[in-house]
């Protein structure tokens, strides 16, 4: 139980770091945020696997089904309007891809989702996101003598994550361990609601936090009320790295 509390605390701290990294001068620090997301993932695993977990919610509310198609980065071209987040949350909807966005982002995200842009204070809009996604500054003439298709070899970093993903730690009974895909919308809605829900210790019956936020979280007025859950279903479905990437 002690581990569970510590894990919960670490999850909160980690999410706080990811959130505050958005306004940092100099842009997103990829290295630091990668490390934070790794800690977040470890803590989440411990939190979910510790005894004392509430019973499994039905799969429909939880994560996307196992046979979810592979990452759909190519599907999500910049400029396409994003789906409304609430619907997706209910269905465990499509993944917002990490959209191959060059470079660190502070306020904009390239995934075209107005929700996380809005979470940044409501100043961005889908048009901004679209532009950001479409126009990475052209690099100088960097000759590369092979296509992106020929990648890596055994031991190269690209292959390693695949192996990790394919052999995840044995999931707790009934849990579908789906590290690759996740329900982004709930995390985004958490950001949008200034963390009041996440940091709360109230039981999971509570589905909405007051919009003004009763905790001392930063006062980002959420355009998106969203669903505020610090509870099991959300933590189960979080894919910290993808959501962190996508949120940026």
């Amino acid at each position, binding site marked *: 139980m002690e581990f569970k509390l*510590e*894990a919960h605390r*670490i999850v909160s*701290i980690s999410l706080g*770091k990811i959130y505050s990294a958005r306004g940092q*001068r*100099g*842009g997103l*620090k*990829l*290295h*630091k945020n*990668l*490390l934070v997301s*790794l*800690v977040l993932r*470890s*803590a989440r695993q*411990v939190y979910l696997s510790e005894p004392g977990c509430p019973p499994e919610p039905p799969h429909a509310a939880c994560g996307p089904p196992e046979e979810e198609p592979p*990452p759909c*980065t190519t599907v999500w071209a910049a400029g396409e309007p994003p789906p409304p987040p609430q619907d997706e949350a209910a269905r465990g909807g499509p993944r917002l*891809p*990490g*959209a*191959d966005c*060059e*470079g*660190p*982002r*502070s*306020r*904009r995200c390239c995934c075209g989702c107005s929700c996380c842009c809005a979470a940044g204070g409501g100043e961005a809009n889908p048009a901004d996101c679209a532009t*950001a996604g479409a*126009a*990475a*500054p052209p*690099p*100088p*003439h*960097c*000759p*590369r*003598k*092979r296509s*992106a298709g020929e*990648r*890596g*070899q055994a*031991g*190269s*970093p*690209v292959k*390693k*994550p*695949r192996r990790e*993903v394919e052999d995840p730690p044995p999931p707790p009974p009934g849990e579908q361990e789906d590290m690759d895909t996740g329900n982004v919308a709930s995390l985004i809605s958490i950001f949008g609601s200034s963390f009041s829900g996440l940091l709360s210790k109230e039981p999971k019956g509570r589905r909405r936090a007051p919009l003004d936020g009763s905790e001392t979280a930063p006062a980002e007025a959420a355009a998106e009320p969203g669903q505020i859950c610090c509870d099991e279903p959300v933590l189960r479905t979080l*894919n910290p*790295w*993808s959501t962190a*990437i996508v949120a940026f």
Partner: protein
Amino acid sequence: YRGAGGGGGSNDFQWCFSQVKGAIDEDVAEADIISTVEFNYSGDLLATGDKGGRVVIFQREQENKSRPHSRGEYNVYSTFQSHEPEFDYLKSLEIEEKINKIRWLPQQNAAHFLLSTNDKTIKLWKISERDKRAEGYNLKDEDGRLRDPFRITALRVPILKPMDLMVEASPRRIFANAHTYHINSISVNSDHETYLSADDLRINLWHLEITDRSFNIVDIKPANMEELTEVITAAEFHPHHCNVFVYSSSKGTIRLCDMRSSALCDRHSKFFEEPEDPSSRSFFSEIISSISDVKFSHSGRYMMTRDYLSVKVWDLNMENRPIETYQVHEYLRSKLCSLYENDCIFDKFECCWNGSDSAIMTGSYNNFFRMFDRNTRRDITLEASRESSKPRAILKPRKVCTGGKRKKDEISVDSLDFNKKILHTAWHPVENIIAVAATNNLYIFQDKIN
């Protein structure tokens, strides 16, 4: 004179305070925080970069027989603004002016050259002296005002006259727009013509004369960013083999690459990794295994890596484990959660070799820095503080009390000041002179003069 690199190593003699540079104010301006320190190849010049984008170069004074004790003090030689804050309008983010690294070029003529880099742009600076000035121009007078041509009745040849020494720094090359992610390293090649720059996911090779193109030699960006599990944290060229370089990762691994084997070095020639000790696994194992610095030894036979709690020396011929491991501040292992909370766990400590590769040095908290003698296996903890800053005062070894009864002069772990961190240190290439950056102050220590 005591030979190159300090004879028996760091503990056969004592370290003395020599100089401290920087404001004494308790209130430190963020722009004044030193972010990199580097001696040049001869050790006569010492460069620092700060968060405000400035570079300050100190020059060692010639030894003066009338003042034998001054023994080559470092005084300001040149100060210039290397980088300014920029704004990337396309991505709507600010590019910090903080100098991440300075690397000197080997000296080829009277001028000195160095590379300085911030997150996105590398610049080649020429630092040259001017001690003569031409006088006696025909078309302008001494103030520079143009003379009335009708009043010129005779021509004269301008002559060179001595003037007060002026040191000028001018940017000779600007290498921009080649890095999408934040540059963490630059390294000059032993061919003296090329250098590499590394960001989180890519390493580029440049020619010093060519600014409009660079060659990408390593790219670890996955096709799908969601699969990203590691980033490049440091990179360096081998000191002698111009085709070899290494890069370290956030997973605690080092890859050695040979540019002769293929144009793109995504395949490594050697892969250095120490198996993880399963008993020490924690939430933070991954973070503390991330390598913050990698440095080849001067000999080129070894390399040293710094992770959060230790320094490791690797033999380039042995990939499966380091040959030496030195604990820098093992007492922090039980505090990792707090250090994660206050962000200290992300601090990137550097490390350095002495000239003879017999000793290594790295920084810690509370303005402590540590030295390890590789031969005697002795280690010492010293402090850079104003209190021990009397001229030629011998530095007293410090000790951290890790538990039980605290002895006199020991400091307990909980009393350590984590805001006083020594991330950047440099060792003179030949002599036992070290430069230690403590926030906004630069301390210079030398070995005791017998």
